[in-house]
């Protein structure tokens, strides 16, 4: 599948350290939450980009490989770990499993593709307004993202649009230890 990224960086043919040097520069131009796709042929870039992202606090989402070209996905995070709990009610991640409601995953398409809970519906935060009609007001909706921040925002938007049975899942996918469904 092709994946939607906000920016693309072509680092094919470059060898270490250039893929990381260029990625660092490119990330500086992104705003919080945007996704960079890095094309690279240097095999070592996979481990290095993941480790670099961690040291600077960005979110390394994953890597795909096709015809010897690696595609790395990174989400820019400026203060992603600080979760301001505003929306009530919340529900614990462990309690969501086995319930009848809908797990609504509001992370970016690429994050969803690299691993989500079986049966979850993907509507990235930015697409919510356009796709809100896909949701059923009678159904319980458990909104989940990576840490609980984006889902908090979406839960508020849903209530403002007349949804009543909405829960914010805390913590988010960072705490999920069950099976991950990959669609990439």
């Amino acid at each position, binding site marked *: 599948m092709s994946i939607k990224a906000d920016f693309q960086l072509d680092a094919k043919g470059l*060898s*270490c*350290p*250039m893929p*990381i*040097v260029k990625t*660092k520069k490119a990330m500086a131009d992104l705003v919080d939450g945007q996704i960079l796709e890095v094309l690279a042929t240097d*095999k*070592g870039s996979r*481990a*290095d980009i993941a*480790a*670099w992202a961690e*040291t600077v606090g960005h979110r390394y989402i994953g890597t795909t490989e096709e015809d010897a070209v690696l595609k790395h996905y990174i989400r820019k995070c400026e203060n992603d770990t600080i979760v301001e709990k505003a929306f009530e009610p919340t529900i614990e991640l462990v309690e969501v499993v086995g319930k009848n409601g809908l797990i609504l995953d509001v992370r970016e398409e690429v994050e969803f593709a690299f691993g989500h809970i079986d049966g979850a519906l993907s509507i990235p935060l930015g697409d919510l307004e356009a796709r809100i009609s896909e949701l059923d007001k009678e159904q319980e909706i458990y909104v989940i993202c990576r840490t609980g921040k984006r889902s908090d925002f979406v839960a508020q938007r849903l209530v403002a649009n007349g949804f009543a049975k909405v829960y914010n899942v805390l913590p988010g996918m960072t705490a999920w230890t069950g099976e991950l469904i990959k669609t990439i």
Partner: protein
Amino acid sequence: MSVQQWSAADVAKKVINNEELFILDVRNADAFEDWKIDGHKFEYLNIPYYELLDGVEGILAKIPTDKEVLVVCAKEGSSMMVADMLAEAGLKAAYLAGGMKTWSEYLEPIKVGDLTGGGELYQFVRLGKGCLSYMVISEGEAAIIDAVRFTEVFLNFASEKNVKIKHVFDTHLHADHISGGRHIAAATGATYYLPPKDAEEVVYDYEPLVNGTTVQIGASNIDVGAIYSPGHTIGSTSFVVDSKYLLTGDILFIDSIGRPDLAGLAEDWVEDLRETLYKRYRELSDDLVVLPAHFMIIDELNEDGTVGKRLGELFAENHGLNIEDEVTFRSIVTDNLPPQPNAYQEIRQVNMGKITPAQDEQTEMEIGPNRCAVR
């Protein structure tokens, strides 16, 4: 300050001569933890290059000014960048040409000793990977044992010494590195030998290497005699050279013993390993000098850089030769084994001739430390 480039041979000299060196390894922490350049008097600092993109000011205080400093990375590029940055900050720094990739491939030939009638025995020490290969030379002829895949090193050495390679042996089907044996044989017209019990799946022709196989090198009759010594693999065979040296392959090392699990048959082969180490080898002379196919740690190197020790001393000192209880022995060599070598199953396929990866892929397969032993 200018940046110097060091070759793997330069670093090898530092290791063998027990010199001091400060290594700034700029690979990521996992890679460094897994595998680094070992030296008796080396000091290390591991800071990944991507933490230094904004400058080296933060680490200058940790870098000595009274020692040589070598920056090392996986392939070269990052270490060059960091060495440049250090030089701009006024420090003297060198980088390793070709990085750990080249280090992993470097072979240092060292003479082990003289043989009857003017012959010589050389050990090729692959410092970065812990592999040991051997060349027996006598009166214009040579035999090679457990050659690694850098065939040109052996071919060049033979031509420098003006000898013709007649016999090429592998003590067993290797699982941790790719053998150069049959390629050297093909290039020189030499005979290639492999134990038939390890060769059931190989797809090329070879001469069977069995208990009692003997060849002579040169006119002065230096014997290279085979002793069947299974346990690491079912075919594993040792050699006695000139009644003086015992080449043990991956059965017995200086500070450890072979592991029986790399072909998936640990339970079956543990008895063989016990038999070889506790019976077959005990019948040999204590004065034979054991020359293994690997070393695991730098402390196993002798003063001159060779790896070898009298069999009698190993019987006294090597823990793996001093486990009286058979049940304990079985448990030590089959439970809690160290991780298996990188890509060991694919490496066996290559050594069987079933797959022939490109050079780059072969390099990738051999990356990482040696893990053929149980300590």
